[in-house]
């Protein structure tokens, strides 16, 4: 790789530098490959940007998202000279205002909070449960596997959106439905359905891994089942798990948006100091009512959802390419 030699020129061979390079761990190589992937860098930048919005929403947003600006309702975005309703864009309201004269930009910034958190918290729960159950099912096999997999079949058989709708409609007025403005129930429902996918992938991974020679070797030298699971099977299935996580997050963000759009999920907040005020799904629902007259109310959250979800997909793709051992040594 470092130089080419022509046959018969043996003296050159002695001058060749050794091609061996510094040894790096699998993880380091994966990180390097990830950072060489332009799309995943863009994804990380977008995710970072929205994470900053989530944390510093009160400092960044120009107004409180619940503040009414009387006389300034239905304003188009600042760059629109005159909108269809005869109103003029006002630079004070960059993305315009909604039906009640609330600043759309501030609402979108605050909406990022719920949408991002809905992506992360249930994913953490899903990963823990899904990995544990999938690994047990794959490793123990037999009756345990059958039981767990039939259970996942049941969960899998449910069209998930229908399940969310049913749960959210049914339990909305109970104490559990009003916890954290209805967010707790949403998290619970999301986690309850989605761990199945993780469990299936981990089980499949473990099933194929446990037939491999290195597990056989570990068994031969007397490794205990616990050691095999945690020292051999878990690290070797981490790649797919990380990738699933990266794809679960945008899936959850989309689900929240759909549920919010159907008027389920988050309850409207009235307290301006509350941490969870609005979400992109709720904003989409509000924007839907004025799709012809004020498309900006719909476009702003829709573009945000699309951007974040795209960013996570880019990152997920990058992670998959980086973690796939078959890619090792290429490029």
């Amino acid at each position, binding site marked *: 790789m470092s130089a080419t030699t022509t046959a018969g020129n043996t003296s050159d061979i002695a001058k060749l530098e050794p091609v061996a390079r510094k040894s790096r761990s699998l993880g380091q190589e994966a990180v390097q490959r990830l950072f060489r992937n332009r799309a995943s860098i863009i994804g990380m930048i977008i995710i970072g940007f929205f994470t900053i919005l989530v944390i510093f929403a009160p400092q960044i947003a120009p107004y409180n998202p619940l503040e009414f600006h009387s006389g300034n309702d239905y304003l188009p975005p600042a760059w629109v000279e005159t909108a269809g309703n005869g109103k003029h864009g006002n630079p004070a309201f960059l993305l315009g205002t909604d039906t009640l004269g609330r600043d759309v930009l501030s609402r979108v910034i605050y909406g990022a909070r719920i949408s991002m958190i809905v992506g992360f918290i249930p994913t953490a729960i899903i990963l823990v449960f899904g990995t544990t159950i999938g690994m047990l099912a794959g490793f123990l096999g037999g009756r345990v596997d059958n039981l767990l997999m039939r259970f996942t079949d049941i969960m899998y058989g449910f*069209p998930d959106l229908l399940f969310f709708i*049913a749960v959210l*409609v*049914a339990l909305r007025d109970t104490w559990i439905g009003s916890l954290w403005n209805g967010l707790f129930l949403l998290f619970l429902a999301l986690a309850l359905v989605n761990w199945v996918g993780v469990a299936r992938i981990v089980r499949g991974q473990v099933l194929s891994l446990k037939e491999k020679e290195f597990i056989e070797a570990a068994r031969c030298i007397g490794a205990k089942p616990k050691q095999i699971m945690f020292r051999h099977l878990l690290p070797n299935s981490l790649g797919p798990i990380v990738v699933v996580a990266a794809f679960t997050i945008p899936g959850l963000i*989309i689900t929240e948006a759909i549920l919010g*759009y159907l008027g389920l999920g988050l309850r409207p907040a009235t307290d301006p100091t509350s941490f969870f005020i609005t979400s992109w799904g709720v904003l989409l629902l509000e924007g839907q009512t004025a799709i012809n007259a004020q498309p900006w109310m719909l476009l702003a959250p*829709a573009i945000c959802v699309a951007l974040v*979800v*795209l960013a996570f997909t880019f990152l997920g793709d990058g992670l998959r390419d980086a973690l796939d051992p078959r890619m090792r040594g290429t490029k």
Partner: protein
Amino acid sequence: MAAYIFRRLLWMIPVLLALAAVTFYLMHKAPGGPWDRDLSSRQVDPNTQARLNEFYGLDKPLWRQFIAYVFGDFKKDGTFACGLMCGNLGPSYRQRGLTIEQILFNPPEDKPIYYSRFGYSIRLGLLSLTFAIGVGIPVGVIAALKQNSIVDYISLFIATAGISVPSFVMAIFLIIIFASTLHWVSVVPKHWDQIRVWILPALVLGFGTMAYTTRLTRSSMLEVLRQDYIRTARAKGLHERVVVYRHMIRNALIPVVTIIGPAMVGLVTGSFIIETMFGFPGMGRAYVQSISQRDYSMILGTTILYIFMLTIANLTVDLMYVIIDPRIRLHD
């Protein structure tokens, strides 16, 4: 193999029952009932409500109602009305005199069967699937053959966007562009006999599947491209066209073929948001309406139908994998 299929089919019964029980419980738990009316319209008076409850058996305890729904119940005159186990999905509480099967499968008068709600959803699903496969496979093949070219990058970007951007957000964009701004189509058409009005919903519905097919075809093609038998085929002097068509595409399409069935089911069952947005007269919109109307048997019947279709699709995927890839074994 036959034993495996039989066992899986048998397993569908408890799966269906468990899911039906969960749905049944949740929907009865939801506040309100089928006799509630819009606050603006005339209300059903309490006596009538009690009579209706008695007639439909809604006054009985929940578990009793569930058993009546699944197995059947004796009517007042002593005749036995068979339940879910005979394929009866029950009477609708909102559309009097109609059973759920009639609502879903019976077309309006003098119309062929595909004018029923189910037929409309199937037609929309087929149209989206045709679009998804007809565009997805060729684009995926071309992208793989021209890997790392500008064509590849563009199609990959569109595919990634199509997978990640949810269909209803895509619908919002397309409605704003084509309906609100350009006025090419109306958002909610009056009737669905023209082919023009089908384009937008089918496009929106099929976009995700199209993107998925593109990516699957591309990655599968890339894997095939590097196989030794491709090199052999080239080495023995086969025409490039023969190599591509007979050796590459045939092998690369195997994983793609396995997803077609489930994709179809996914398109039919996953369309209720799109159907609602476009005012489409299909099964999905009827389902969403039945939820808000608390039409219990309609919710349950449609859910069971959806779940039935999904389970069959899942089983088909598993079987297809076994048939195609002998390395995968079916365990007990």
